[in-house]
């Protein structure tokens, strides 16, 4: 299918130059190529939270659930449990998944449920016009922290590694080829897959210049090794330092999945009326 067939009539309201365009285009390319390869687009469900990232569900002609701030994963988890044949993908922001919805993110990793979460990590609240997020660097002067935030940033990839996610990668919105590869790997991975996307907010935290200088793609790393993955992930801690920023796939393992173990009980497979009768008799 043509990626353009995945467009809708919704008017795009992202700022010109927003990193979200790269994510949107990558999603279109990847989902249409997966459709060609036998993962039908009709079986894809996209769940978003609230923030600039969330608008992506309006721009993509796929099944979707535009949820509330921080709450992509509980919705996605139930959709997957309801119908394991579906490909369930969450698009979520850093404020969304790391502040308001961190518990859901940790539990999704802990369950290693077969869902993909794309983190639109612009490290600033855009729709609310420029406050710090959990991944903003120390000292970030946002509207709510005019003196500079006194919190060190969170490293979401590290959280995911210790939390139990079985696929962890980082992409950058200037680097479409890598982004495509990572999205495809993550979506076809069986288990909880997490892609941290350094998505630049041109209006409130334009990091293009800094990122362009510092990003590099990891090569020949042992993606089956927890320790190696941890070393790479910790080599950049989202802080203002000039450390190089690794991109690429950091970790991928096969691990038991919640959706696999969850009993597929279905109402129509039992004779409920006689079961109710039997239970009532047992209560006598």
């Amino acid at each position, binding site marked *: 299918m043509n990626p353009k067939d995945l467009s*809708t*009539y*919704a008017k795009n309201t992202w700022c010109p130059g927003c990193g979200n365009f790269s994510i949107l285009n990558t999603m279109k390319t990847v989902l249409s190529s997966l459709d060609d390869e036998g993962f*039908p687009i*009709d*079986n894809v*469900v996209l769940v978003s939270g*609230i923030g600039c990232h969330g*608008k992506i*569900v*309006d721009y993509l*002609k*796929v*099944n*979707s*659930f*535009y*949820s*509330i701030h921080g*709450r992509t*994963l*509980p*919705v*996605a*988890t*139930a*959709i997957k*449990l*309801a*119908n394991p*044949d*579906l490909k369930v993908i969450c698009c979520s922001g850093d404020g969304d998944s790391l502040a308001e919805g961190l*518990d*859901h993110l*940790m*539990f999704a990793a802990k369950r290693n449920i077969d869902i993909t979460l794309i983190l639109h990590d612009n490290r600033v609240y855009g729709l609310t016009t420029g406050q710090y997020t959990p991944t903003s660097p120390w000292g970030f002067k946002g509207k709510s922290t005019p003196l500079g935030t006194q919190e060190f940033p969170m490293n979401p990839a590290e959280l995911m590694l210790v939390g139990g996610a079985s696929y962890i990668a980082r992409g950058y919105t200037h680097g479409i080829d890598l982004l495509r590869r990572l999205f495809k790997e993550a979506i076809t991975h069986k288990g909880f897959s997490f892609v941290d996307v350094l998505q630049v907010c041109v209006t409130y935290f334009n990091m293009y210049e800094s990122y362009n200088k510092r990003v590099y793609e990891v090569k020949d790393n042992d993606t089956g090794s927890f320790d190696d993955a941890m070393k790479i992930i910790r080599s950049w801690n989202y802080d203002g330092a000039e450390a190089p920023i690794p991109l690429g796939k950091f970790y991928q393992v096969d691990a038991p999945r919640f959706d696999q173990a*969850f*009993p597929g*009980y*279905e*109402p*129509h*497979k*039992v004779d*409920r*009326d006689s*079961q*109710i009768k039997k*239970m*009532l*008799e*047992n*209560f*006598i």
Partner: protein
Amino acid sequence: MHDFSTLIGGIAGDGINEAGVTVSRLFNQLGYRIYMYYDYPSLIRGGHNFSLIRASDRKIGAHVNTVDVIVALNQETFELHKERLKDSSFVIYDLDKVKIENLAQKGCGLPVSAILKDFSAPMIMRNTCIIGGFCKVVGIGWPVLEKVLKKHIPKQLDLNLKVARKGYDAAVEFTRIERVDQPSFPILTSNQAIGLGLIKAGLAAYIAYPMTPSSSLLDFMAKSAADFGLKVVHPESEIAVILMAQGFAYEGVKAAVGTSGGGFCLMTEGLSLAGMAEMPIVIMLGQRTGPSTGLPTYTAQADLHFALNAGQGEFPRFIVSPGDAEEAYYWSGVALNMAWKYQVPAFILSDKTVSEGLYSFDAALAGDMNEEAPVLWDGKGDYNRYKYTETGVSPLAFPPLKGQTVKVDGYTHDELGITTEDPRAIASMSDKRLLKGLALAKEMDGYETVRVYGNGKTALLCWGSNKGVCTEVAEKLGLRVIQVLVLSPFPEKRLRDSLVGVERIITVECNSTGQLSRLARSYGFELREQILKYDGRPFSLDELEAEIRKVIA
């Protein structure tokens, strides 16, 4: 009239709830209808627990303060409850734990510890032993107890039987409970009845985070999941719970959640999402004493206005408050049907008294209730999740659909489910949601949303758990009872009709501000007199009767 009340008490960990259920089953075998109130503090071991089991030849749903028998596993039980004894009452107690001097009533002390020691039986069998003694004292034959134990004791049956028999043989008979010529009914809590009602109406998933008094519904659903083909999930928080219910609903899986006040606080943003996104969900809200953590294991009816108003914005909702196990069964099924027919949140507003109270369940009284089909998409043309229709109800479809998308949206949206800020679309979608509320209200006209008992000129107006106590006191005093079952959409006309011939209305509620009165007043009903109780305990028959006599004197 046959009416017999038994109090069995001990410390938490003595198995007092299960002992009460066993006593209930004994009376059930003799043809009695039972009601059991279980009183326990919020702790796991120690503290004082007691079960009050009332048996009658008629359907009942309330306890009395005076009792015919106290079964005391510890001294505290006797000391705390001896005021409940009548001249004709008995006391059965563990000789090794309880010292009673100068008892005015008949007493029977049993060497429980010695009996357990003889059989090397564990301490938890103290209650089996003393129930053996209880049967002898009140003249319930050994075969009845043997039958009950054989049917319901899952572990170490032989040892239980031996211990019970020894207790039976060590006691003396003071009276003989007469058999009543009535069938034996299933005995269940309303939480179990809620579960069965939801299952009957097609529930396919139950999601909850444990919180008293809803936890026993989660436990019941989890235990019964394979039998009924249910998906049961206990996730990280109530926030996840209500969002998961909507994930299931998105795929056409009928889901319900259960919680109490504090957990429901966390659900309110998800509730509002369900209102906007038109996701069918059922919420079992078991009220307990608040505010905040309050009194976790005790009752209240103080969250009516919370349920009515929870969640930002305006959207229709269904709220029913059952008053006993039969209503819990029937109306839980109706709640699920209404949630799906009108794509709205539906509440089963229970409380600790109803949820954890044990009732004789008469399926014939509960009434016939079946799964009803929601409006489904016919597969023609393009699918629009929020298509405008005359009733406001848009046909449902669930992914995957060939070449069509299902777009659910918590923002203001158009018919397809694409976010819009267009003023006309926003007003139209608001109207659509209100239309669904009107259609739901119209359907409710065909249901007995207000129940009337008796035809006195003075009426007790009540809701939820006070049904049982009100109807029984009212019958004695020649009053009418009006029970408002459905609280949203408010059954204004039915309530008005039920008041024909009424000269005086007294509302009876377990809260401190008169929440039903306040609601009914907003529909123009004049309500001045009220009897309120807000100490965490349900009204007993004698207590409510005394309160009513004070008001009408």
